[in-house]
Every structure is written in structure tokens, then in C-alpha cells.
């Protein structure tokens, strides 16, 4: 026992010798680097796999396009904020309620679309120009971003593995959805709210499963 205590004292001395000024803003910096690198890979992947939509220049003036993009950017931002809290041991995660807010704000837009559309046309409105492709591509494009987030989290100290994995998975898929906006030919709120949100949910579940193994420190 005395030997062990002596070992602890030695450890303290060794750690003190190793002290260097800690980097301020390290968490924000690493998250930014990880997300940017991952998103860059996703954009390249998107262009290689399916290319940008041909009418991209036109839709940049449409409010539908921008409200769809805003939903995804807001979801990504909210989950990134929660993830940065989860990166620090003992931090409060009481702001987690902001994550579903973008979806709730987007809901009225989908309601308006349904009301202004004849019920016989609800099928095409919902199914758009290929929902399977959309959901799967968002999931594929989120893999590099999840990788970037994982790289960032390696120097962090998350203590709630399941939650951290889910939030990083959600964040990765939301950013991937923003990237996918460059291609996705369907701009209706109903379509986005159903199929993108499905992709987000799958990504959060997968992220939580993998997070438990990958984020351990």
C-alpha cells in the first residue's frame, strides 16, 4: 500500500513537469475543424455520386429552398451546441430541448402545404422525386462528418456515451442534409420534414450505438 501511495506521489510530480498552458477555445476549434473537414469530404462525395441539381442557380431565389435549408442548418447548429456541452464532464445539458425546435417551427410550413394541396395530390407531395435515395444518401454523406466529429471528440471527455453518440450522429446527418440540398430535387416542407427527419432519427440511433464503443477514453 505504501508503495502505491508513493507511486501516486511520483505520478503527481511527473504530471506537474508536463504542464503546459492549456489551449483556450480548444473544443470549439476542434469541432469546427472536424465538421469542416467532414463536410468537405461529403461535398466531394455528393458530386462524385449524384452531382449538383441542374437548377441550383434558380432555386437559390426560392423561399421553399431556403426554409428547407434553414431547418437543417438550425438542427445542425442546435445539436452541435449540445454536443459541445457533452464534450465537457459535469456540464449542464439542460439546453437539449432546443434540438427539436427547428422541426417544430418547420411543421406549420408542412401544414400549409397540405392545406393548399388537393388531398389527391398528397401522395406525390410526400413521396417527392425519390425518398429512398434521399434518406440513404443523407446517411451515407453523414459518415465523413461523423468521422470528423469523432476525431474532435477524441481529445474531449464525454461522460454520457449514449447521449453524446446520438447527438453527434444527429449533427452529422443534419450537416449531411445541408450538403444534400445541393442535389435534392424536392423542396416541399412535407417531403423534407418526413424523410430528412427519418434520416436524422436513424443517424441518431446508429450514432448512439457506435458512440458507446468509439468515444470511450
Amino acid at each position, binding site marked *: 500500500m505504501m508503495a502505491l501511495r508513493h507511486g*501516486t506521489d511520483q505520478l503527481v510530480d511527473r504530471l506537474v513537469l508536463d504542464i503546459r498552458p492549456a489551449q483556450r477555445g*480548444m*473544443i470549439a476549434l476542434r469541432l469546427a475543424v472536424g465538421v469542416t473537414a467532414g463536410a468537405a469530404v461529403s461535398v466531394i462525395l455528393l458530386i462524385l455520386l449524384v452531382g449538383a441539381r441542374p437548377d441550383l442557380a434558380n432555386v437559390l431565389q426560392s423561399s421553399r429552398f431556403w426554409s428547407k435549408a434553414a431547418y437543417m442548418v438550425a438542427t445542425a447548429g442546435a445539436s452541435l451546441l449540445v454536443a459541445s456541452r457533452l464534450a*465537457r464532464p*459535469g456540464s449542464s445539458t439542460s439546453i437539449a430541448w432546443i434540438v427539436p425546435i427547428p422541426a417544430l417551427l418547420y411543421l406549420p410550413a408542412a401544414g400549409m402545404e397540405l392545406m393548399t394541396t388537393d388531398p389527391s395530390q398528397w401522395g406525390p407531395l410526400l413521396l417527392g422525386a425519390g425518398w429512398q435515395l434521399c434518406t440513404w444518401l443523407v446517411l451515407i454523406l453523414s459518415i465523413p462528418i461523423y468521422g470528423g466529429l469523432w476525431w474532435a471528440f477524441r481529445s*474531449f471527455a464525454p461522460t454520457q456515451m449514449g447521449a453524446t453518440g446520438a447527438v453527434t450522429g444527429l449533427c452529422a446527418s443534419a450537416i449531411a442534409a445541408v450538403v444534400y440540398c445541393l442535389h435534392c430535387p424536392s423542396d416541399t416542407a412535407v417531403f423534407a420534414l418526413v424523410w430528412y427527419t427519418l434520416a436524422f432519427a436513424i443517424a441518431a440511433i446508429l450514432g448512439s450505438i457506435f458512440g458507446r464503443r468509439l468515444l470511450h477514453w
Partner: protein
Amino acid sequence: MIRALEGDAAAYHELLRVLVPQLRAFFRRRINGDDAAEDLVQETLIAVHTKRSTYDRSRPFSAWLYAIARYKLADHFRMAHRQAREELNDSIAAPDFEMASIALIDIDRLLDGLPAKQGAAIRAMKIEGLSVAEAASVAGISQSDAKMSVYRGLKRLSDRVQGRVK
């Protein structure tokens, strides 16, 4: 801690010195075995050191510290649990016994395929470990006959096994 984060070695030394007894008390209250508790103290100190830039200067230090300590404690229990389960699996499975039973079944099958005298001689001398004289008297045959039976039986077995392999 904040002065330590700025790179002040003296302040850092002071801080760690104060932390050691606190952490020691924290872990000893929660697990059996002073050695295991001391291991956890050391692991927590290393984590405090390597993860120190995840400390948010505007928040209480002890919340950060004990979140790390609790994480290390949970890790310890998880590992101990996994170890206990593996040990249990090992003792339930008893692989030696399984292998031995399978081998015995194989041997029985092979020996049954031999002429009765050869099979009995091999069983008596090679498996039960009797001497040539004992085996011969049990079977009621001469010693040279017993030796010859073992030799012929083993040769036939090896031919058969090789033939099956080829």
C-alpha cells in the same frame, strides 16, 4: 486550476496535492480494496491532466472533477463485471472435458471397426495402461500374440485414418 491551466507549475502541484486525498476518500468509500482505489486515484489524475482543456473556467471545478471520477468508477465496475462474466463462462464451458469426451467417442468408433482381439488389446494396453503380461492374461492369449495384436491394430487404424484424410 485556472492558474494551472495558464501553465503555473507551482499552482498545479498544489492543486494535485489537494486532490489526491479527496479522490482517495471518494473511491475508498465506493469500492472494496485500497489498491484498486489507489489505481483509480491515479487514473483520475491522469485524466485530469490529459483532459484539462475540457474544463470550462466559468463553471465549478468540483463538478468537472467528480464527473471524471464517476466516469472512471463506472468504467472500473464495467470492467470488473466483464471479467467476472468471462471467468464464469470459462468455468461453465470446461473445454478440457468437452475435448476429452469427443476424443473418447472417436476412439470408441475407430476401435469398434477393428477385429475384436486387436481392439481389446489396444484398449487394454494403450488406453487403460495395463502391462503386456496383464493384458495377455485378461484376454487369455500369449504375450507375443497380445503385442502382435496391438501392432497390427494400430497399423490398420493408421492406414484407415490416413486413407480417410487422403
